[in-house]
Every structure is written in C-alpha cells, then in structure tokens.
C-alpha cells in the first residue's frame, strides 16, 4: 500500500512529509516536485509513475496532496483516501490550506498517523476521529474507555448516548446534469450524477429505512439508477438481496449515497443557438427555454457564449430575463440570469467585431456552457418515497426532503 504522504504548498515546498514504509526515502518528495509541480502543464495526469514509484496527487486550494506507492495499488482507493484526508482537514480546520497546515503541523501529523497504518487506511470517520484526536476547538465528548468501545465496536461511526429533544432528519437530493448537444441539436451525451446527503439529529441508536422510486423495486414505474455507492453505515447485504436501504445513521451531516442515471433524463433547459461568422464580425442568436413546471424556477443562471479570440467590441441585446456583457478574461459573452420561471424563454442577440490578425486562424468554436440551479426538481425523476425511523424508545421524528438540480457540464456546441 502507500509508502508515504506528502503535502506541498503552491511553490512546491514540502509542508508535511510522512513516511509509512522503508521502501522510499524522504528525497522522493523532491522527485515529485521536480517532475510534477515544477512542470505544471506538462503533467496533467493525477497518477505519475517515475521508475517504479507511483505518485498520486490532487490539488486542493493552494496545496498539493500526494501519496506515494511502490506497489501496484488500487488507484481509486488511493484517491478516495486522499479526498477523505481533505475532508478531515476541512472538518478540523474549517479551511484546509497552506496557512491551516502550517499552524496545525502537529495535528496534521497526528491525523495522518491515525488514518494510515503501515500504509493501510484505517478508520477515517470524522466523528469517530474527533473523539480521540482533539484540539482546543475540537474537544472529546466522551471518556477514554468509551472511545475504545466505539472505535472498535460494531458501529464505529455513532456514539451510543445521543439525545435530542426534537428528533429530525433532513434529506437533500442533489443532482448534477451533464449534457453535450451537437451543433445540429442531437444529444450526444446526457447523464445525471446524483448525491443524497442526510443530516440526522436523532436520539439513541435509530434504525432507518429509506425508499426511492427505484425501477427494480417499483416494477418498471420508477427510475433506473445505477452505480450506487453507499456510506459505510448502509447494510450492503440487505441492499443486494431486496434493494432496501437500511442503516444506523451517523450523527450530523453525511453523504448517504451516490448514484448515476443515464436513461430518460428531463433536461431542464433547451438551448437553440445560431452563430454566423461573416468576415470581420460574428453574429449570435441564442434562445433558451426553461423546460420544467411553471411553478418552479431556476436561479443563478450563467450562460457562457464563447467569442473568437480576436474579438474587440460587442453589441449585445437581451430579450427576456437576464443581463449579458463581454468578458475578455474568459473570451466569452457572459449572460447572467438571476431567475427564470419554468416554461419561460429568453433570448440574446449579439454582433461581435473582430480585430485583423496577422495569420488568420480558423476559430475553434467552443461550446456554449450553462450553469444553473433548479430547486425541487430532479433531472433523473428520482423521488424519495419514504424514510422510516425505528428506535427502541419509539419516539416521533420529523423528516424533511429537499431536491435540487444543478449543472454539471451542460454544453451545447455551436
């Protein structure tokens, strides 16, 4: 498994260097810096193999987090681990960046010691770790013997003695729509990446059951969801047998599951672009239709319409909602629509003048991309059918469900 974990700052200075095995030397940190950090742009791949040493890295804020392995390890596992480390950092320090690492050296080393033993990942549950890796701001709420009980028990992610006056559970279904439409209007690719995040404020050791309109359970009336990934609290055996999702939730916020849907996706927006290049000018006509119920509305919409790199002046007119302006930094017309009601439409017309170029290069015509949020709408059509909570004391609990669809990479070619 992993031989070392390094954290670098933006410049490539080593902030954290923790070796777990003797098969690498501390100097491999320099190897990574020279070959990857120093040659930004040349190395795009997150996995770099130099000789027989493999470096897995992710960039976060102004940090480079890098894991080193000498064996043929499972790369997906390594990245899962690295992202969990980031999650830990965020949870402990609020923001995980260079200054946070610098002011918490000891704690970071302590955490790295806990989560990885001889290169093998250990318990990475934030709540559990917070029981025994403590700081001034993070204080342990339980006594030492109990920590041992919990950390080595059956439900490592939950304490026994949680009590709330009001028992509540919030379920957020968040979907990201990815879309690519060709210039002729054919859908080339469309899928939904979904995430169900739960915040539980429940007393005792509640047993929860969760139901979706899953096609397999609903006899073809529901949604075909694929690639389900669950939080470790979900009993996978049960899911495999009868596709019921049952679990004892951790306290507070956690990601219950992730899924993907590719069939029968309700696209929230229709984009009809017309782009004409006429010598020294380019003409745009872009029409956007909201394709969901009139009761709902999209917020924070940003439509980015790319312009040729030689654009000088732009004359833009918007009919309907929103405001647009030329943004030279992005080489694009940026059209912001704060609110678009369902079934409404809005359009933009623009004429862009081009500057003469020494060597005319044909414009690559990059796609128009959209960013948006639609509340109470799921592009996959997924619905939460029920959430049942069973507890020994049989208390009453309140459940809330919220749906949100946002843009992943929502692109239309022109």
């Amino acid at each position: 498994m992993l031989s070392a974990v390094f954290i670098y700052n933006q410049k490539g200075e080593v902030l954290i260097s923790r070796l777990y095995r003797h098969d690498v030397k501390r100097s491999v940190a320099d190897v990574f810096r020279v070959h990857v950090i120093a040659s930004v742009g040349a190395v795009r791949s997150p996995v770099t193999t130099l000789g027989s040493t493999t470096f897995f890295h992710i960039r976060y804020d102004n940090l480079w987090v890098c894991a080193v392995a000498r064996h043929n390890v499972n790369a997906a596992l390594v990245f899962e681990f690295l992202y969990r480390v980031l999650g830990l950092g965020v949870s402990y320090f609020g923001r995980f960046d260079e200054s946070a690492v610098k002011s918490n050296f000891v704690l970071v080393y302590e955490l790295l010691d806990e989560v990885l033993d001889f290169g093998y990942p250990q318990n990475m549950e934030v709540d559990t770790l917070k029981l025994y890796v403590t700081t001034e701001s993070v204080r342990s709420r339980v006594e030492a013997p109990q920590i041992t009980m919990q950390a080595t028990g059956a439900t490592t992610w939950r304490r026994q003695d949680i009590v709330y006056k009001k028992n509540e559970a919030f379920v957020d279904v968040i979907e990201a729509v990815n879309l690519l439409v060709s210039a002729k209007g054919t859908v080339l690719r469309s899928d939904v990446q979904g995430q169900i995040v739960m915040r539980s404020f429940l007393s005792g050791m509640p047993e929860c059951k969760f139901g979706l309109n899953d096609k397999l359970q609903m006899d073809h009336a529901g949604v075909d969801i694929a690639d389900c990934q669950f939080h470790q609290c979900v009993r996978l055996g049960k899911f495999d047998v009868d596709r019921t999702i049952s679990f004892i939730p951790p306290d507070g916020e956690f990601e219950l599951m992730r899924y993907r849907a590719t069939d029968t996706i309700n696209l929230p927006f229709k984009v009809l672009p017309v782009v004409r290049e006429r010598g020294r000018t380019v003409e745009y006509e872009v029409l956007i239709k909201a394709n969901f119920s009139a009761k709902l509305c999209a917020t924070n919409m940003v439509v980015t319409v790319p312009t040729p790199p030689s654009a000088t002046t732009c004359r833009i007119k918007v009919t309907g909602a929103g405001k647009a302006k030329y943004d030279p930094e992005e080489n694009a017309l940026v059209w912001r629509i704060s609110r678009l009601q369902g079934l409404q439409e809005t359009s933009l017309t623009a004429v862009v003048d081009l500057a003469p170029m020494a060597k005319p290069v044909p414009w690559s015509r990059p796609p128009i991309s959209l960013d948006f949020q639609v509340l109470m709408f799921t592009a996959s059509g997924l619905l939460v059918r029920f959430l049942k909570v069973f507890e020994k004391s049989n208390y009453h609990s309140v459940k809330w469900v919220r749906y949100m669809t946002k843009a992943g990479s929502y692109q239309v070619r022109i």
Partner: protein
Amino acid sequence: MAPMKGLTVFIADLRKCRSHEEEERRVNKELANIRTKFKEAGLNSYNRKKYVCKLVYMSLLGYDVQFGHKEAVDLASSAKYSEKQIGYLAVTLLLPEDSGYMRGVLAALRRDINGGDDVSVCVALAAVSNVATREIAEALTEEILNQLLSPSASTFVKKKAALCLLRLLRRFPDAAGAHAWAARVIPYMGHRDAGVTLAVTSLATALAQQYPDAMRKAAAFAVRRLKSLVLDGECPTDYMYYTVAAPWLQVKLLRLLQYFPAPESAELRTLLLRILRHIIDAGQDAPRELQQMNAQYSILFEAIGLGIHLDVDQGLMHESAALLGRFITSRETNVRYLGLETMAHLAAYIDSLAPLKRFQGVITQALRDRDVSVRRRALDLLYSMCDVDNAKPVVGELLRHMGGADLALREEMALKVAILTEKYATEYAWYIDVMMRLVALAGEHLGDEVWHRIVQVVLGNEELQLYACTIALQALNAPVCHESAFKVSAYVLGEFGHLIANAPDSAPIDQLKALQSKMPSVSLQARAVALTTVAKFTNLFPEIKTACLRVLDRHRGALDAELQQRACEYYALATVESDALLPTVFEEMPPFAERQSALVSRLLKQEGDTEDQRTWVPGGRDINRERRAQQTGENPAEADVLDGKDGELPQSDPADGPADPAEEPSITESRRHYARLLWESDGILYDGDEVQIGLMAQYKPPAGRVGVFLGNKAAGAIYDISIQAFVKDSKDDKDPPLSVQESPGQSPLPASLLPLGQARIYFDVTCHRVFATAPTLRISYTQAGAPTVLELQLPVTCVHFMAPVTIAVSDFFARWKQLGEAELGEAQSVLKTPFLEERSGEWLRGVVGGMGFALIQGADPAPDNIVAVGIATCESGERFGCLMRVEPKPSHSLTRITVRATNDMLAKAVATNIAMIFDSK
C-alpha cells in the same frame, strides 16, 4: 527607457497570479483591451509603445500574439530612438519570418543602417542579427559591410557590424555573397580596438571555414596580433582579465589559425612557435584564482590544439602531454574534461603514443568519473589512443566498465569496443571471445551492425571459423543466451557447423537441440534466423534431416507471416526430389567484400556540429590522416581537367567514403561527351536521369559563342534553374586569359521547366591569351524538392580558337624544322589506338579538321600520315602557329602524335585534347 506604469502594473498583476488559469484570464483581458485600443485611431506614442511592450511580454510568456505587427513595424520606422528601440524589439520577437510586414522592416533597417546616428545603427544591426531572413541577408549585406569597413564608423558600430555579418553568414552561407568581400575584412583583425578585433576574428573564423583560399592572409594577421598580445604584452587595460591579456581574443586567434595550414614563411613559423612555447610555459604554474585559471587554461588548450594541428616539433608536444597528464587528475571537472578532450586530440595526431600511455591508468579511472561528459571524453580518448600493444588491456577495461556505464554511453562504448577489437585483434580466439562477451553484456544497446559485423568477419577468415563454431555452441548451451548472441551463433553454426560435427557433444543433433532449446525464448526476428540455420542443417547433415524437417514443419503454422513463409519455403525446398537443388541453394556463403566497416561509419555519423567545424574527430591517427587528406586533396579533378580526369566533380561528401560504383558509367559517359565536343561543334555534354545538357558552339577566333541547352528528362517539372559558366581560379585575376560572359540581349531562363521542356542560354567566350584550364559550367536546379548542382567542364580550350591556314606543301617541313630548332613548344605522345583500322584514316582526318587544322595533302611521304596546320588567335592580336603530324600504325595499334607550335602551352593543349579524344573513343 522611460518607465511605463501600465506595463509595470500589468507585469506585477501577472506575477501575482497563483495559477495558470488566472494568468490566462488576465492575459485574455489585456489582449482584448489592446485590440480595442489599436482599433481606435490616434493612439499616442507613449501608449503605442506601452501596448507593444505588453504584447512582447505576453508573447515571451508563451501566448500566441497574432496582431499588433503593424504597430510594431510603425514603431520601428519611427524617427524617435525610444520608439525605434521598442519597435525593433517587437519585430524580432513577434514577427514571423514570412510576414508581409517584412518589407517595411527591411526599409526601416536600411534607412537606419545607412543614415542615422550610432545608436540607431546599432539597434538596427542588432535587429538584423535577430531577424536575419534571407531577404535581409541579400539586401543588407553590402550596407553592413560598409559600416564595418567605413573609416568614419565608431568602434562599437564596427563591432556590431562584424557580429551581424557573422550571424548572416552562419544562417545563409550562400546569400551573403561572402566570397567577394571575405578578404576585405582581414585588415580589421589588426584594429587597435580589441573589441573590434575580437568581433572580426569571429567573423574571420567563420569565413576561413568556407573560403580558406580567400582568407589565407588572415593567418599572418592572427600571428602578429598574438605576438603583440602574448610576447609583447600589449593589451589595453580594459581587456586584462585577471592578469591574462584578452583571453577571448587569444583563444579566437588560436582557433582561427587551426583552420589554416602551417605558415610557409619561416619567420612566421618561428614566431608562432615562440608564441606557443610561451603559452605552454606559462601554463606550467597553476594560477590560484578560478577566473584566472579558466582564462589561462582556455588559452593553453587552444594553443595545444594549434600545436597539434601544426604538427610542431615533438618536444613541445611531449611537454604538452605531460601538462595534460596533470590536468586530467585535476579536481576541477571542467579542467578534467578539457584535458581529456585535448589529449584525445593529441592522440589523434601524435606519432608515438608512448607519452600518453603513461596516463592510461588515470584515464581508465576517468571512466568512472562522476560527470557523464568526462566519462564520454575518457572513452573517446581511450578509443583514440588504442593501438596493437595496449588493445587488450584497453578493451578489457572498457568491457569491465560496460556493465556500470549509463545507457547512452553504453551503446557508444560497445561500438568502440567492437571496432577496436576488430582493428587490433592479433588472435582469433581473443576476437571471438571479446565479441561474444560484448554481445552478452551490451546486447540491448547494440544496433544490428555489430552482430552483422561479427558474422562478416567470421565468414572472411577461415582460421576463425572452427573456434567460432565451438564458442557459438557454447553460447547456445549456456543458461542465458542474449538475442544477438543467439543470432550470431545460429548463423555461424548454419554455415560452419560441420567443422565441429566430430567433436564430442557437438554432433549435428546436439547442435540442433541447442538451437531448438533457445528458440522459444527469442524474438521473431531471431527465430527467423534460426529457421534458416535449420534449413541449412538439412543440407549440411543429411543424417538429421527428419529432425530438421520436423522443426520446419512445426513452424509452417506460425502466426508470424515471415516465420511461416520461411518455414513453408524451406520445407518445400528440403522435400523436393532433387539432389542438386538443396546444395546449390545452401552453398556456403562467400566472404563479404571488404568495405568501410559499418561500425566506423555509424560512429562517424553521430558527428554533427552547428557551430565551428571540428578540426579533428576522435579515433586514432589513421582516420584523422585520411580525413585531412580528403580535405586537402578534395578537388584534384577541378585543378586540372586535362590530366585525364573526368570533367565532373565528385558530388558525394568526401566523408561518405568511396563513391558508389553505380556512378561509374555515368562518369565515363560524361567524359566521352566532353572529348567528342573537343572536335565537334555541337552535341551532348551530359546525359543524366533528370536532365540532358546539349552544347552548340561557334568560333570566330579570338571569340566564340557557346549555347547551352538544358532539357528536362524527369517526370516532373524542375525549378530554380540557374546556369553559370566561369573560369575557376581566376576570381582575383584582373586579367584572365579567357573571359566567359552571358551573351547580352537574350531572354532570361524560365522559372521552371516542364517535362521534355528545354531552356537555353548563350555565353560569349573570348580568348585573351593561351590558357590551360577549361571553364566550368555550373547548373543547379530543384527537382521534386531535391536541389541538385551539376558542375561540368565546358569544352572550351585554347585549341578551339584555332583557324585553319593553308601553306604550300613544300613550306610545311621547312616550317616544321624551323619550329623544331626554335624549341618554342613541342609535344609528342604515342597513344594506344586499338580502334584504328585500315580505313579509319577518314575518321582521323575528321578529328584533325574538326579541331581547326588545315590538312596539308601530300606533304608527308607516308600516305597514311596526316600533317596539318592551324593558327590560334588571341584578343590581343597575338597569333600562334601550330603544326601537327599524326602517324597512325594500325598494325601495332599505336599512333604517334607530334605537335610543334610557337607556344608551349598550346602545343601541350593540342596533344592532351587528342589524347582525350583517342582515349574515349
């Protein structure tokens, strides 16, 4: 430059950017801003400068800046210096060479170089050096040269002009027309300003490599300048560098001298020796400071290099060897490197390697040096200093280091070991042992050349074969057998396996088994070689034919097409019912024809210098001597066309080794054409695959007109045609004996010539005096993208300016006798003429008549003999009489020619022409 706030802020912004994306956004924003600004009219000078600066900065960061070129050119053409400066900077960095704005740039440059104050000239010269397109080189060379030569220009302009010329010359050796002015820059090597001298010396060094003849005088200047620097210690204080007088200049001068042969005058020679002695003596005491050491050593190393080049008295070189021995043990890596390099140079020329062999141990140590370039030099040196006596230890050392050497070096090392072993092998066993070890050690890093060569050597030496077979079988039986070793073994056993068939454990079946055991583990290519061996076994050892057939049969279903085909064909061959077929097909291979070893050519191929040419290559004395001989005796053919050589220059690079035999016929062909045109007025001069050149000549002594016709025989059109005729060696002759000029008033040559098309050009030739060398015709064209240059001898000799005169029969012998007594000029030769028969007198008469002689009938008592008279006329009005007597003896296949003339050169020319005509009949 006045500070520009906007620019500073912009650069600060970019430097503040944390990520690439952020920077790109900032750049995009700025580009959009500049685009709009440039679109607006009435931009003031300050803003224009600022924006162009920003564009330059962005382009330096690697962003594609495709506009603003016009603004840059506008700035460059401005009268203000500050604008000009930024304009030229932008032009050199932003504009591509083929930009349409180049014409504007050229105009601005011309204006600045010609008129303008010193700073403008300098900034323009710097721009010329950086832009340096062909157009600029062609258009501005003259002006830049004037700046260098003008007495009024200041020293720093001169300096810049010289460096600018150097740059143009390096980029376009042909466009600058340097031949015409090369000699004119030499006097400036003696300029009182050391900076100018330094720049001009660099220029002279480049020129000397191209035009050694024109630059010959530079050597004397260089020696004198060195004398004043080294012996007299005359050096301006500004150029004293850590107590060394102008080290850069000294190094350049010493380097320059290496491109010339040793000075002929004894005075210069002794002076040069004194200088070298002085430098070498000064090198004995080690300087303390690093900078002084660098300066002093660089001079010393060049001086030793020059000493080697001049082949000066061995005492000096022995001293140098001792000095170098000290350097190669130095603690400074640079000094070690240079010491080894120079010692390799020394080893390449020195007569006795004894003084170097003392350091063999140290050099071997250097193979293990920390620095890879030092290791490489050590390898070169070992390779150079290897001879019969120390070959074994050297090769042994190299093999020992092979395992530890890094990959790039290993290949070179292996090649060198292979060459040395072959060259200095005294025992066959040793050669085979070393080569097999080499193959095993460095197998992956060897090209195919090495194992091909081993096979070639084994095939060529009968004594080697038995031992080679034994070793080959051993190699196959070893637990690990490298691919190349496998190939060698397979091939050798296939050829000579029968030699060891009676030895214990080497029976045919054992050989086959050994081969088979390794076959599965080697590559397809090696397996194919093994299949051939198996097929040879079927012929060599009939007793194991069935076993062999089984192997072949198994491979008939191989997945690889090559293997399958071989197996099927061999199987069919072996099963054919014919006794004679198999032995004929698998007859023993004949020894390979000796050519230049592929190994050596591969090693030499790795050379490739962009800067100054090297004056030597590593690799022992023989190879360097050959190289030098090739360089100096490169053009014996063009020196004297009439000495029986052909008129065509060797077009192949002298380093390529002997010319391809396929070229031979065309050479004799062109020689025949040339000879025919010596007596016929029109005909074909050259007939190649791509073009045909015809000639039509009309003479009216002392002048004549020669028409050259170029016909395209190739399938595609030919372009860039140029046809020139000139007299070699008469460039600096004010009054050449023969003038050749294009006839006035003819249409220019077409730009291209379609297949079967023809171009023609006429030349006017005038004979001023009797001359020996025929003019050269140079034809260049591009066909299918490949430029070709043909250099042919134009058949115009002084004999062509001969007109027939009739004199009385009786007068002939009176004149003949008179000329014989006067001894003005006589040439006699007896030529073999096997083609002459009884009735070929007619042909002979035709030849003599065609050469411009009048036949005197009945003057000679023997009826077959021919006597003839002609008069050559020169422009000056001089006339030279010429009498000829031809006495054919068909019975002996011999003909005697006697020519008597009032001019010796004329007589000789007539005799040579006839000899050529007979020779090529």
